[in-house]
């Protein structure tokens, strides 16, 4: 039933013609809708003429009671047809708007998930969500209400004007003499109203942020006994918000009486003139009565024109914001030219790799190293030293800006991204779980049907099975934003299970188990060890024991590898590694000595290792 064409956005995306160009997809439906709208408006005007027929017929004694009855039936018939057409119009515009909105949503969803990481890094997620929801909605309303609303007002004006012209051209002209003025006033005022409204909304956002911070930081407010100050600060913002609200009201208060008066005077002038025409014999009484209805339909809707025009300009802005996303170039995930391979060995070579994000500040400078199949490479260094960038380059989340990364001797740029990523597993420090069951989260990365048994085996290997079984719904427990909240350690083990099930040959891990107690830490460590077996592993290390087991340690500083080697090699040389190591080790060593001294049981402590 639905065509699933992708939205194509042209450079005109930020103008009204861009919006209309987008609407071309529903050209047939929209044209049909405009047609039925015009017919409905015309039929309404025509029904007024039936009233004229009755009044004049009766007054001139041309019409008997049967004639009146026939006219009443005829009137009813016209209105039923008119009603049917206006229903078709309403249905048509809703359908068109919904089709377009659905298309826009799906295109955005797909496009966004295919945009590069650099894009996501620079675009706050709240902003993206805002554009995909409320901006899409304002585009939807453009098609459902505003565009046809304007067409409706214009048709009402033109058709009623034409009908009035049939009665009397002079009367028609006189009736619409200040209509342009009303339209102008309307547009002017709504411009002000929406500007005031925009400021009102901005202040609303300020207020919301303030309340949010107060609630989230509740403990801090308490502990410094600052509630009075908080209330005062809130009141300041709340007052300002009220002022902005008054401002919006102010413009409304000016506009509506003005519009009412203008429209009212215009219609009275027309009616008095029509009255004189009747007295002069230029017009029948029936015509005058019909004209009074036609004049109302011609004048009053103009009041709304300003609102619609302003709404349309908002729709255009929303569409521009959406277009901006859709115009961004996607990263190509299924490049046909790329190598698709079922099996890799997992040898990775960084050959003079340079990398910088969009702002051109170098993040990695001339990084070279190699690792063999099954080796573990540990990366350490201060925050911002480039270690995360190194692991993000391997699955091609970003592209190198200089040099080359090779997998099994072939540049990773030659593989299709999809195939490359199929061989890489990632376990993050704070893994993201989707709102879904635990089972679905574990099986998230697999593109085939997965049995419960497989999921359970992975969970057991990741030492999370028992914790899962403690939940009432076991593997069907809902997690994520709306589900039960899991501890950092539980989340990480679910991510490990996810990686185990995916069974990749290259593994990337942000190793942080700091948020869990000692017992769990050992369990995680064991499951990590199991996960790393036989895989090429890159590990961002926070703890010494991860480093010690690594085949290669890369010590990073300011985007460069400053030291490289095994733990034994690095501690024997002076340098950053030994500095970091000593700070951690000094304390522990003292504690160790003391504990051993107190209990005299070195052997036992060693046995626990």
């Amino acid at each position: 039933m639905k065509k699933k064409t992708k939205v194509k956005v042209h450079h005109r995306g930020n103008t009204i013609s861009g919006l209309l160009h987008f609407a071309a997809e529903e050209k047939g439906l929209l044209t049909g809708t405009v047609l039925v709208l015009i017919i409905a408006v015309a039929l309404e005007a025509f029904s007024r003429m039936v009233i004229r027929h009755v009044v004049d017929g009766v007054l001139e004694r041309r019409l008997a009671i049967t004639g009146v009855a026939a006219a009443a039936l005829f009137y009813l018939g016209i209105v039923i047809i008119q009603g049917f057409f206006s229903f078709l119009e309403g249905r048509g515009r809703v359908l068109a708007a919904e089709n377009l909105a659905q298309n826009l949503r799906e295109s955005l969803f797909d496009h966004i998930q295919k945009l590069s990481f650099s894009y996501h890094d620079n675009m706050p997620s709240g902003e993206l969500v805002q554009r995909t929801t409320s901006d899409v909605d304002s585009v939807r309303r453009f098609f459902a209400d505003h565009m046809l609303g304007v067409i409706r007002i214009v048709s009402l004006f033109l058709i009623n004007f034409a009908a009035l012209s049939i009665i009397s051209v002079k009367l028609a002209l006189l009736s619409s003499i200040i209509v342009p003025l009303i339209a102008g006033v309307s547009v002017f005022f709504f411009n002000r109203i929406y500007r005031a409204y925009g400021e009102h909304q901005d202040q609303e956002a300020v207020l919301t942020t303030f309340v949010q911070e107060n609630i989230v930081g509740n403990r801090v407010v308490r502990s410094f006994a600052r509630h009075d100050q908080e209330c005062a600060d809130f009141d300041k913002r709340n007052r300002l918000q009220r002022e902005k609200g008054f401002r919006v009201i102010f413009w409304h208060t000016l506009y509506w009486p003005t519009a009412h008066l203008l429209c009212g005077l215009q219609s009275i002038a027309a009616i008095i003139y029509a009255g004189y025409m009747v007295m002069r014999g230029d017009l029948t009484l029936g015509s005058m009565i019909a004209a009074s209805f036609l004049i109302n339909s011609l004048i009053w809707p103009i009041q709304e024109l300003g609102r619609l025009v302003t709404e349309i300009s908002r729709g255009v802005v929303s569409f521009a914001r959406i277009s901006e996303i859709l115009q961004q170039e996607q990263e190509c995930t299924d490049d046909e030219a790329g190598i698709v391979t079922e099996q890799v060995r997992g040898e990775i070579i960084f050959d003079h790799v340079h990398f910088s994000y969009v702002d051109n500040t170098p993040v990695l400078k001339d990084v070279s190293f190699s690792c063999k199949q099954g080796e573990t490479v540990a990366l350490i260094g201060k925050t911002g030293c480039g270690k995360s960038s190194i692991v993000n380059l391997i699955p091609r989340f970003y592209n190198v800006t200089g040099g080359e990364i090779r997998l099994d001797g072939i540049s990773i740029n030659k593989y299709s991204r999809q195939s490359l990523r199929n061989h890489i597993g990632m376990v993050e420090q704070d893994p993201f779980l989707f709102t879904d069951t635990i089972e679905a989260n574990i099986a998230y990365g697999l593109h085939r049907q997965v049995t419960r048994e497989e999921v359970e085996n992975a969970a057991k290997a990741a030492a999370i099975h028992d914790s899962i079984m403690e939940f009432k719904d076991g593997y069907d427990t809902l997690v994520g934003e709306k589900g039960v909240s899991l501890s950092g350690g539980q989340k990480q083990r679910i991510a490990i299970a996810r990686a185990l099930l995916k069974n990749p040959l290259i593994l990337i891990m942000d190793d942080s188990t700091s948020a869990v107690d000692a017992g769990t830490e050992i369990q995680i460590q064991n499951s990590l060890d199991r996960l790393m077996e036989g895989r090429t592993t890159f590990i961002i290390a926070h703890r010494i024991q991860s480093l010690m087991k690594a085949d290669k340690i890369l010590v990073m500083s300011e985007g460069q590898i400053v030291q490289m080697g095994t733990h034994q090699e690095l501690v024997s040389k002076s340098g950053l590694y030994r500095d970091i190591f000593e700070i951690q080790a000094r304390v522990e060593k003292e504690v160790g000595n003391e504990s051993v001294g107190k209990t005299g049981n070195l052997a036992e402590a060693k046995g626990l290792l």
Partner: protein
Amino acid sequence: MSLEDITYKGEFRGQILVRILRLARPHWPLMVGFLVAVSFTALMDSVNTYISTLVIDRGVASKNPDELLRWGMLLGGMFLLNSISLLVFFFCAGRLGEQIQYDIRRRLFEHLQTLSFSFFDRTSSGWLLSRITSDSHRIAQLASWMLLDIVWGSVNIIMAFIFMGWMNFRLTLVVAFIAPVLVLTALFFKKLIITEFRKVRSINSRITQAFSENIAGVKVVKALNREQKNLSCFQQITQEMHGASFRAGWLSALFLPLVQFITTLAVAAILLVGGWQLLDGLLTPGEFRAFIGYITFMMWPVLDLSRVMGEMQQSVASAERVFTLLDTKSDIQDRPDAKLEARFRGEVEFCNVSFHYSSDNPVIKNLNLKVLPGQMIALVGETGGGKSTLVNLVARYYEPVLGTILFDGKDYRSYTQSALQSRIGVVLQHPHLFSGSVRENILYGNPEATDQQIIDAAKMANAHEIIMSLPDGYDTEVGEGGSKLSMGQRQLVSLARVFVSDPDLIIMDEATSSIDSLTEHLIQDGIATLLKGRTSFVIAHRLSTIRSADRILVIGEGRVIEDGSHSDLIGLKGRYYSLYTSQMRGERAAAIGF
């Protein structure tokens, strides 16, 4: 039960409506103003139609230009009056709405500041936020614009019938049938449409969720090549959305013509019966026109009323939520005679303290404990054993269910919460900063602090140099929740904030997040300075911290299992010993590795 779990039906109960009206009481002149003005406007609509009748009958039909001009001018005068009336009701209703919203928001916010800690544990911030933002708005709308629409609509319909009855009673009886038919149809249809829109809203929130998850989790999506599958899941939701919105849309599209059709039936009846009366001279042409005018116009108040009826239910549900929240009293109340100022040497004593969150699940059982001034207490034990609860009791975020807690020998309930809590410095695992500059955040600890005091505090917290290295030094904006600073920087700033408040007692949940070793070292030093000479309770995760404590409490199953210095407890070879060695396993590896 949490406030979030209650169902708020939005039933029209007198009690709720009275409470909503009471919100408007301080602004009664505005309310009276708009009620009078809107009734006047509704009356004017009918009067104007009637005057048009005179324009036609006395003026046009009688061929009397003076009468035509007179009634025409009167009509113009009426429009002028009506414009003034419009001005009054827009002004009054609009201001009233803003005032009520302002009042509700202020009351809610101030009320939130008094609620206890347990309340915030049970209630999500998102839920609370919606009460302050959207519910307050809806209630304000109900008391202003919706009330206005109801008054306008009902007065309008009633006046139209009065005028029609006065002009021609028989014809009025003929068309009177439409009133109940219109109202019933409108109510029935509106219900259908509202149900559909409710569906649309719930699907819409799923769409938003799908978007926000896919954006937040984009790394996982890419790493696991889920793009295709996610898109097809998403397409299912948008398909549902399309279906529901379309249904809601065409039902709405049907509604208007349907109402129009009913009024048209009446118009046809007027054409027939009125035309016949016109033939017999029982009706003037002006009256004939007026009847058609009254009936066709009646469509608008009916549409308005049915719209408001639909929205009202939501507003009343909003009011239920807001009032329930306002009626929630804090679990912890200040005693009437509580002292407003406090200063402590730092002696803390638990006497037979028991505590539970819910009665079937005791957390602390008959705890006795005496802490001397200046002692540093390390709390260790399994997660869920009661460490956090103990600390929350000290901070009086919760109060003991049984027993008392003494500060310097006096029941701590003899102080107000704010007096007490302002003497307790809290160092959190994940420090919370407020939007604003670094300076403002440090000032939060003590609004009266001078610049010198701020700098001194920052220096003591080891934060000064890091702050000076920020782009604008102390004036650097930290962003929402401190997001523009690194975790380590946030911790240092929050430490300076505690220093500047110069507390008598420290409660600390030791940070465990991974911060680079050098910053970590700065933080540790700062904390050590802070703890010096102050009584402190530290939920400890690091061996170094535990070891430096004067006293270690092993907490488990709501009791103090072991109590003593590090070497005492090691010697005991009990719970602490096994915790300690287990914690050591990993860390020792490094030490033995030499």
